[in-house]
């Protein structure tokens, strides 16, 4: 374990209460806590800055506000990609997150000879993302709950799972098992990391094995599927949650849609492999918009953490 340094970004957590005018998400929850928020004075704030075009509604979004809105389009609620660091920041209490295994990096064990070398790929992604690999793990507080939290990042080699992702998650799960902590993993991945060959496939078995013992201790595990979650990650820890939650519009599946089309020569049904499709087909417990995730996770954990469920009744 080592410390990591990164620029602390303000994401509007607990900044503004109540006065949230933006037309945010259909409220699924019956109670409302402080909105993770959009700043109140949007117009005043926009003198200059960088803009992002919403991929769905094409609205021009002011980056600062987009950040404050957790990368959710404040016009159409489209969920843009969010980095692992931003995600963690949006979920845990300030200064409560103790990162684990921050310095762990991948090695080119197979000496993979391809078009480009694995080593140069790793370097390029480490430089472009500021991450060591495709997952950040640690223990932090979410509301009243101490929680083992793993967050994947798609920007690092497509969130692919190699030895580092598998090992960091397995250590996280084992820590949760040893310390009796609930576990949440925010998933996003294109699957196994080819460059590590069968070692990457074995990470599926390794993480699932660790989860077997976490479950045996009757500890809660919530898996959150975000855009996109597929293949080897989908066929291991992503679908093993006591609860499986998804973000709206996320592409979620095992095989890629093109492979399925080529194999079956069939038209894919509308909305195939989206969070909504899978909710309909019974895989997912609930679709939770990003801005409600923290609150919802806390709510779920109230019901699933044995030690804390008692206090909740009193409150």
């Amino acid at each position, binding site marked *: 374990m*080592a410390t990591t340094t990164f620029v602390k970004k303000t994401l509007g957590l607990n900044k503004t209460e109540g006065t949230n005018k933006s037309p945010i998400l259909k409220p699924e929850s019956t109670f409302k806590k402080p909105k993770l928020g959009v700043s109140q004075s949007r117009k005043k704030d926009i003198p200059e800055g960088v803009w992002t075009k919403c991929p769905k509604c094409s609205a021009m979004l002011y980056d600062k506000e987009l950040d404050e809105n957790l990368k959710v389009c404040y016009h159409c609620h489209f969920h843009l990609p969010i980095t692992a*660091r931003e995600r963690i920041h949006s979920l845990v209490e300030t200064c409560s997150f103790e990162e684990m295994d921050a310095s762990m990096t991948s090695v080119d064990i197979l000496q993979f000879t391809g078009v480009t070398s694995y080593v140069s790929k790793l370097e390029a992604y480490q430089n472009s993302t500021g991450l060591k690999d495709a997952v950040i793990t640690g223990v932090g507080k979410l509301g009243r709950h101490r929680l083992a939290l793993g967050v994947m990042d798609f920007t690092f080699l497509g969130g692919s799972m190699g030895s580092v992702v598998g090992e960091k998650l397995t250590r996280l799960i*084992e820590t949760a098992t040893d310390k009796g902590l609930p576990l949440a993993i925010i998933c996003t991945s294109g699957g196994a990391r080819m460059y590590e*060959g069968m070692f990457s496939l074995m990470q599926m078995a*390794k993480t699932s094995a660790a989860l077997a013992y976490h479950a045996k201790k009757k500890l809660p595990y919530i898996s959150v599927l975000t855009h996109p979650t597929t293949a080897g990650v989908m066929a291991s820890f992503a679908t093993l949650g006591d609860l499986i939650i998804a973000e709206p519009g996320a592409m979620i599946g095992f095989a890629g849609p093109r492979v399925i089309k080529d*194999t079956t020569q069939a038209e894919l049904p509308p909305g195939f492999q989206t969070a909504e499709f899978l909710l309909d087909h019974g895989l997912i417990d609930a679709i939770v918009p990003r801005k409600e995730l923290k609150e919802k996770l806390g709510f779920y954990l109230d019901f699933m953490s044995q030690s804390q469920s008692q206090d909740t009744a009193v409150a």
Partner: protein
Amino acid sequence: MKHQLDFEKPIIELQRKLEELKKHPAANDIDIKLDEEIRRIEEKIEETRKQIYSELTPWQRVQLARHPRRPYTIDYLKTVFNGFSELHGDRLYADDHAVVGGFAYLDQRKVMVMGTQKGRDTKENILRNFGSAHPEGYRKALRLMRLADKFRLPIITLIDTAGAYPGIGAEERHIAEAIAVNLREMVLLNVPIIAVVIGEGGSGGALGIGVADRVLIMENAYYSVISPEGCAAVLWKDRAAAAKAAEALKITPKDLHALGLVDGVVSEPIGGAHNDPEGAAASLKAQITLHLDEVAAFKDETRLKLRYEKYRAYGHFLEKPPVSAVEPQPLPATVI
């Protein structure tokens, strides 16, 4: 001869010559010379075969693993086991014919055996879905494994699949979840489990019945995280680079064993299992028995612990300065 592989051509050529010589003994005046010639060609065939099979490239190995005359699961159910009695269905949706399983005897020992099954012709392949299971196949397998666990029967799985089926129904019924649940549950089964890759070990579809105390692989099989063609398409942008991908991925039994990714390699007769199915079956039976004897000798607790540790150990990575063990140290400085 049907289904010949390119690298087998020299052997097949010699075999044809031999047939011809044997066919026309009368046409030949000098019998002694003929006998000599036949012996010479037979020797040459053996020699060529040894030569070719000792120098197989990973890609040739993949082709052998896919050889349509190679023994499949059901063949081994008849040759390695006896009294196989098939049990059907996942009790949820269907009976997936790409996975077969049931009670059987391994010599005197009662076991639960199951495996993925390919078809040899079009009709059979439609029934078996080319050996690619739907979620029902994985769920049937787990049902049978739980049955075995309840009644203390060792489990043997035979793996021969290009991968889990990429189809609409498979996605609608959550094939990823079916595989994941198997990975988790197989870790906790109290009875011994032996898994053998007998042909193709296609990624998650293979692993879905492949978590075991001992994972073996036959000499001309392969086990890979992605098909060589798939890897080539992604990394080389060209499916024709499959041979290069097969090499880079380190998917041959020899490589896998050297990397510690399989526990043993089951040797095949020279010329491959398709050339001598009985020989291959005998070799497979001996290895399954050997490993089963070993793992059956452990107490359940010990076996489960060893099974966990085996999977726990997979992975290579670098940890900079203070190499902390599994336990995370309290971290004052990291702040998010």
